[in-house]
């Protein structure tokens, strides 16, 4: 118990004491995972909508691939992104290995199938005739997509939460493609692994708690937006 208590005390002193390194690690975690989630939304939402609203040969295979991608092990993603970005790899000329950009790429690979898969599911829960009805009162194609996204906003927010949750908490890919370089690619998860490996459990607990708090804060914000429109079930009589 003393270990946990020490960790909590250390966490408070690191955060509120203004420890520059902890703040820079936290900020980098937020930047990398925030950017990766944003890119995943930009790629994943249109892909999910496309899979939900169109029929083409090979669609079932594409859906199966997206669903498989929703459970990709981060270390496997880290391995393949590393191979591609390795100096002698196909994309080695970009010189991105062990950089925050490499971590963003790996996290996008992890998060975009989650976003695409959940978008697909959320659009499939909409009434298939709703799109036709919206066109029937004069919606243009972009207006139609916007209205359908608005209508599916509750499950879409769940997709955002799942995407962000998936990448802020992953460690394998960030470690492999980022290298956990102090001041450059060290994020909360990789720093926690490092500190616990060194036996600095108080710092590891502190970093873990910051990670939890960060994850909670983002999810709380999104949940608050989502639940403002929660369906009120009737009370049983």
């Amino acid at each position, binding site marked *: 118990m003393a270990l946990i208590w020490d960790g909590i005390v250390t966490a408070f002193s690191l955060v509120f004491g203004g420890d520059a390194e902890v703040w820079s690690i936290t900020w980098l975690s937020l930047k990398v995972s925030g950017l990766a989630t944003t890119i995943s939304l930009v790629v994943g939402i249109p892909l999910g909508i496309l899979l939900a609203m169109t029929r083409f040969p090979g669609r079932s295979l594409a859906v199966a691939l997206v669903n498989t991608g929703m459970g990709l092990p981060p270390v496997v993603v880290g391995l393949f992104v590393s191979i591609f970005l390795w100096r002698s790899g196909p994309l080695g000329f970009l010189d991105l290995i062990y950089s925050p950009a490499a971590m963003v790429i790996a996290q996008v690979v992890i998060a975009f199938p989650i976003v695409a898969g959940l978008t697909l599911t959320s659009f499939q829960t909409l*009434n298939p*005739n*709703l799109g*036709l*009805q*919206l*066109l*029937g*009162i*004069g*919606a*243009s194609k972009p*207006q139609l997509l916007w*209205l359908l996204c*608005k*209508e599916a906003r509750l499950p879409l927010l769940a997709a955002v939460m799942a995407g962000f949750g998936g990448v802020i908490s992953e460690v394998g890919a960030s470690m492999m493609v980022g290298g956990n370089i102090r001041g450059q690619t060290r994020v909360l998860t990789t720093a926690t692994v490092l500190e616990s490996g060194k036996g600095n459990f108080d710092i590891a607990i502190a970093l873990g708690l910051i990670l939890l708090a960060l994850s909670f804060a983002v999810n709380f914000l999104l949940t608050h937006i989502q639940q403002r*429109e929660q*369906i009120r079930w009737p009370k049983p009589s």
Partner: protein
Amino acid sequence: MAETLLSLRDIAVRHGEVTVLRLSRLDVERGEILAIIGPNGAGKSTLLRVMGMLQQPSAGIIHFRGEEVGRDNALLMRRRTASVFQEPLLLNASVYENAALGLKLRGLGRAEIRERLHPWLERLRISNLASRRVRTLSGGELQRTSLTRALALDPELLLLDEPFSALDPPTRESLLIDLREILNQTGVTTVFVTHDRHEAFMLGSRIGVLREGRLLQVGPGLEVFTRPLDESVAEIVGADTRIPALVESSANGVARVRFDGGVAEAMGAFNAGARVILCLRPEDIILSRETGAPRDAERPNRLRVKVLKIIPSTLHYRLALQCRGSQLSALITRSAFMNLGVNVGDDLIASFNPAAVHIIPIRKQ
């Protein structure tokens, strides 16, 4: 002469190998209410989607106000129409937001939307529900919201796809009466598809009959209901008595036809010896007890029948009748049924006016 608002020429809609709609020609005149009736799967909704430019036909040309509809101008043309579907497909928002949606999509400002929407919310009797979320509404209120959304657009062409079929009878009746008044007052050109003959007859200034993707007949409601062009139309419009018959003679605009069960006189000129179908609407058959001499029963348009089946409903009784080898169907009011005191197996006299008899010539294959 009325202006043609929408014209369809040589339209075909195919789903794979199956042609679900084939239409050589159909014009919708400005100001008319065209009701399309047909059984489930007849292609009614497909036709409405094609008319609303919501579905590209596999072949054919559509003109709206004389202008050919193509991919380039489809949105512009669609914005001159408004569609209402069987389900009130509304967004998860308030009644007002839903009703205002079409106007908002056209880029109108808040004040103008409010000004245009308010009278329609009043007219459809939902202004008191404006701030309610649509999830809390009844089926009738939802469909009123959907109709408000369409009517507020002041469309040149209103397309209604069975908008009442999911409603309970009293709600349907009240909404139908309101809609009839609105359509008559506004004069908005409307195409209304339904499988309900009563709704079609009540709303339509013209009625089209669709079956298996083909338009079998289009014309004024009374004409289509009393003078169906073929047996399929007769079945769809409810001419339940359809008996094969032979023209014995035809003179002075009156034809005498013989069938298994008796002789009927009908208005019209037909070739003697021609094989025909004798059609009667159930409400045109008058039932009585035999009172005169038995010979009287054998006059034309007066048949001796036996009651096979009695099907009661709130307003009418439907009776299945046997007349030797032929079967007839009659619809009588509850009071007439009570006065006659009919039971299954009773012998009755079925009579009908020559003007009520419709003769369909059998086309040689």
